[in-house]
């Protein structure tokens, strides 16, 4: 193209400056349109515009009376304006040597009057123009010229602002990404730290159970304490990162407040030094059940009481809980932890809840701790919309108190059946875990419990073992190659239709992880590094859940009573008949089902139904109805298999109960 227009000397840099604003081909913007309107009013012209000039065009960011969004650069008057630093004003183009023959003067836009101010960036590049144009001869006065220059400066300011906003936005994004990266770094690190810690604590526990001489026992004791402290620190850091990222959720579930308090008390009682009296005072009006986050209350109390006990060498530590308010649907409580310990200097009281702050610089050395505990307490209390305060006198003692509100609960606490180790018998357990150290640790622990353990390297292997052998329980690591714990559990529940208890074992401790575990159908959750007692408790819980459903079945004998007129001998005879006959029939039913022998399945189901009715086993009778119907229709589905299994299990339970009578 024949470029018959002047090119600024700094054209390349000028273009680069223009590009930096990312303004070209953007959508209309009120701020620029207002500026254009202002130009038109002030100068009294029908045509006004704000435009930017790139390599080959003049692009109008905002215009009045132009009617196009861009024109080729060679026909633009503004080529000359961007060479200048001041306003360019041509009062009459017809008498201007440069423009009198311009197509936009003789025709086109019919430009007779032109006034243009260069848009100059703070670093001195003219990237565009602000113009006033008319079809008649005109001369601006000084005020109008001044106004044009001011508006031009505002346009540039507006551009700068947009750029700054963009930068801020980008920086915010970067910051957000950094927080995210830090959180996942912390979570990953905690995983990485916990895995070996798991092994250290676990093997130390095992070692402590072997024959040791006094020195060895002493060393092992120190390793155990150090391991546990390290775990506490890792947990603290993890908690803080969760709170900071807003990922810590407060549960709202029914729990027994009194029991929780007594539990914490008895837990910490073992740590009390001889010269210290440790008391728990509970308000007589304290309700049993409330709705809230039991785990977090536990954590707050353990932290504050733990501190009180740590810093008190003689005297007493008193925990008291009072109901301070009761509304129609909620309670407010005041929890106080008062000690006669070393106290906190006045000037430290205000910062005691801040991170990495302790009563004395030297406390860290004398008493240990991360300096995170109280900060976590404060954040946990505040997350539950409560307040925490402290009163203290140096060398006299401290009182930490906090208030929390809990919703009222009308649910009765479900008694968890406790099963002693022997009740569980000889469990066959399958462990899905890829880490060799953890495998080894789990194996010794499980064997110590007196159970059998098989190990699968990943979920895929676990599923294979499950389909080959009979297990009572699965311990499931979450992070595994090939098939992870979630996928494996989903497969076991949905594809294998198995309700075998599954306990998640994980070092992740990620937010929502526990929920996810329950969601895919796991029955319990044990964080790694696991403690033997906690693992055993989880095993007992899931196994007793299983037992609970057995014992939940109460056989209603009222029908049989009515029939027998209460004759115990006859009742006994009928029960005996049930025990003798039904299990055989169930076996027959299962066999007929396997052979898809519709006729026999139908007959057996039909026949057994009357027996179910007599013992008022409505659910089992319904199972049989469905089985009978499916057999009649000559087609078995997955549901039939389900019902046959449920029925078979149900009979097993019932027979067991009847035998015990």
């Amino acid at each position: 193209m024949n470029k018959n227009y002047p090119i600024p000397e700094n054209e390349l840099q000028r273009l680069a400056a223009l590009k930096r604003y990312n303004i070209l081909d953007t959508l209309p913007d009120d701020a620029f349109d207002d500026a254009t309107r202002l130009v038109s009013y002030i100068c009294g012209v029908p045509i006004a515009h704000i435009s930017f000039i790139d390599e080959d065009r003049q692009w109008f960011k905002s215009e009045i009376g132009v009617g196009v969004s861009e024109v080729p650069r060679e026909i633009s008057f503004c080529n000359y304006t961007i060479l200048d630093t001041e306003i360019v004003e041509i009062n009459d183009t017809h008498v201007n040597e440069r423009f009198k023959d311009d197509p936009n003067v003789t025709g086109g836009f019919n430009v007779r009057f032109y006034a243009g101010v260069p848009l100059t960036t703070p670093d001195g590049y003219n990237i565009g123009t602000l113009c006033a144009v008319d079809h008649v001869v005109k001369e601006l006065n000084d005020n109008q010229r001044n106004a044009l220059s001011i508006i031009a400066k505002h346009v540039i300011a507006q551009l700068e602002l947009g750029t700054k906003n963009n930068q801020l936005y980008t920086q915010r994004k970067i910051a957000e990404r950094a927080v995210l990266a830090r959180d996942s770094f912390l979570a990953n690190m905690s995983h990485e730290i916990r895995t070996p810690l798991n092994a250290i604590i676990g093997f130390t526990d095992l070692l402590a159970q072997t024959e040791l001489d006094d020195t060895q026992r002493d060393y092992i004791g120190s390793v155990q304490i150090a391991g546990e402290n390290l775990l506490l620190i890792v947990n603290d850091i993890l908690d803080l990162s969760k709170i900071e990222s807003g990922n810590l959720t407060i549960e709202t579930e029914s729990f027994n407040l009194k029991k929780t308090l007594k539990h914490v008390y008895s837990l910490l009682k073992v740590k009390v030094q001889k010269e210290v009296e440790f008391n728990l005072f509970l308000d007589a009006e304290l309700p049993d059940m409330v709705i809230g986050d039991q785990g977090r209350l536990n954590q707050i109390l353990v932290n504050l009481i733990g501190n009180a006990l740590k810093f008190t060498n003689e005297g007493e530590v008193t925990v008291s809980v009072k109901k301070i308010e009761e509304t129609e649907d909620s309670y407010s409580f005041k929890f106080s932890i008062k000690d006669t310990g070393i106290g906190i200097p006045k000037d430290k009281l205000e910062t005691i809840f801040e991170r990495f702050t302790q009563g004395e610089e030297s406390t860290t050395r004398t008493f240990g701790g991360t300096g995170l505990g109280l900060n976590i307490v404060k954040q946990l209390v505040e997350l539950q919309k409560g307040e925490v305060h402290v009163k203290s006198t140096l060398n006299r003692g401290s009182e930490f108190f906090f208030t929390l509100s809990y919703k009222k609960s009308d649910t009765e606490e479900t008694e968890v059946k406790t099963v002693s180790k022997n009740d569980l018998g000889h469990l066959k357990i399958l462990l899905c875990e890829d880490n060799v150290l953890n495998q080894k640790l789990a194996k010794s622990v499980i064997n110590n419990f007196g159970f059998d353990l098989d190990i699968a390297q990943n979920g895929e292997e676990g599923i294979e073992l499950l389909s080959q052998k009979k297990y009572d329980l699965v311990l499931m690591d979450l992070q595994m190659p090939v098939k992870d714990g979630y996928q494996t559990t989903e497969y076991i529940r949905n594809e294998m239709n198995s309700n075998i208890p599954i306990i998640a074992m994980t070092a992740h401790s990620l937010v929502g992880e526990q929920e996810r575990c329950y969601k895919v159908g796991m029955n319990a959750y044990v964080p790694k590094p696991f403690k033997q007692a906690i693992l055993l408790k989880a095993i007992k819980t899931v196994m007793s859940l299983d037992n609970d459903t057995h014992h939940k079945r109460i056989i209603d004998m009222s029908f049989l009573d009515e029939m027998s007129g209460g004759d115990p001998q006859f009742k006994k005879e009928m029960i005996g008949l049930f025990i003798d006959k039904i299990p055989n029939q169930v076996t027959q039913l299962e066999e007929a089902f396997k052979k898809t022998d519709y006729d026999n399945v139908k007959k057996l189901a039909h026949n057994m139904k009357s027996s179910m009715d007599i013992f008022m086993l409505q659910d089992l009778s319904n199972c049989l109805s469905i089985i009978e119907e499916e057999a009649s229709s000559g087609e078995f589905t997955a549901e039939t298999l389900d019902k046959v299994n449920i029925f078979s299990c149900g009979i097993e339970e019932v027979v067991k109960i009847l035998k015990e009578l």
Partner: protein
Amino acid sequence: MRIIVAEDNDILRKSLSFFLESKGFSIDQFSDGKEALEAIEKENYDLILTDINMPGVSGMEITQHVRENLKSDIPVIILTSSGVEQTELDSFDIGANEFIAKPVSPAVLLVRINKLLKTRI
């Protein structure tokens, strides 16, 4: 009063029999339809209580035989175990006097038996 009970489920049959005996009836019980039928032909019963679905001869067949071949108007109570069977029977007059759906309520059964036996007297 003599009642014959035909039901293939042992527990139910024994319970029903025990219950009715405790109410003063004399009971003969059978788990097989064919044997029940033979007994009906031989003995003199006051009422037949039969399950609809039995191996050998069904309750429906027993009723038909009693009405058509033996020309007897002995009261017959048929025990049914599902709604489907009930409707089938309702629309199909085979000459039974009562249908009772399982699970059988002893009290209801007793009322029905007494009603049928009184009507007959």
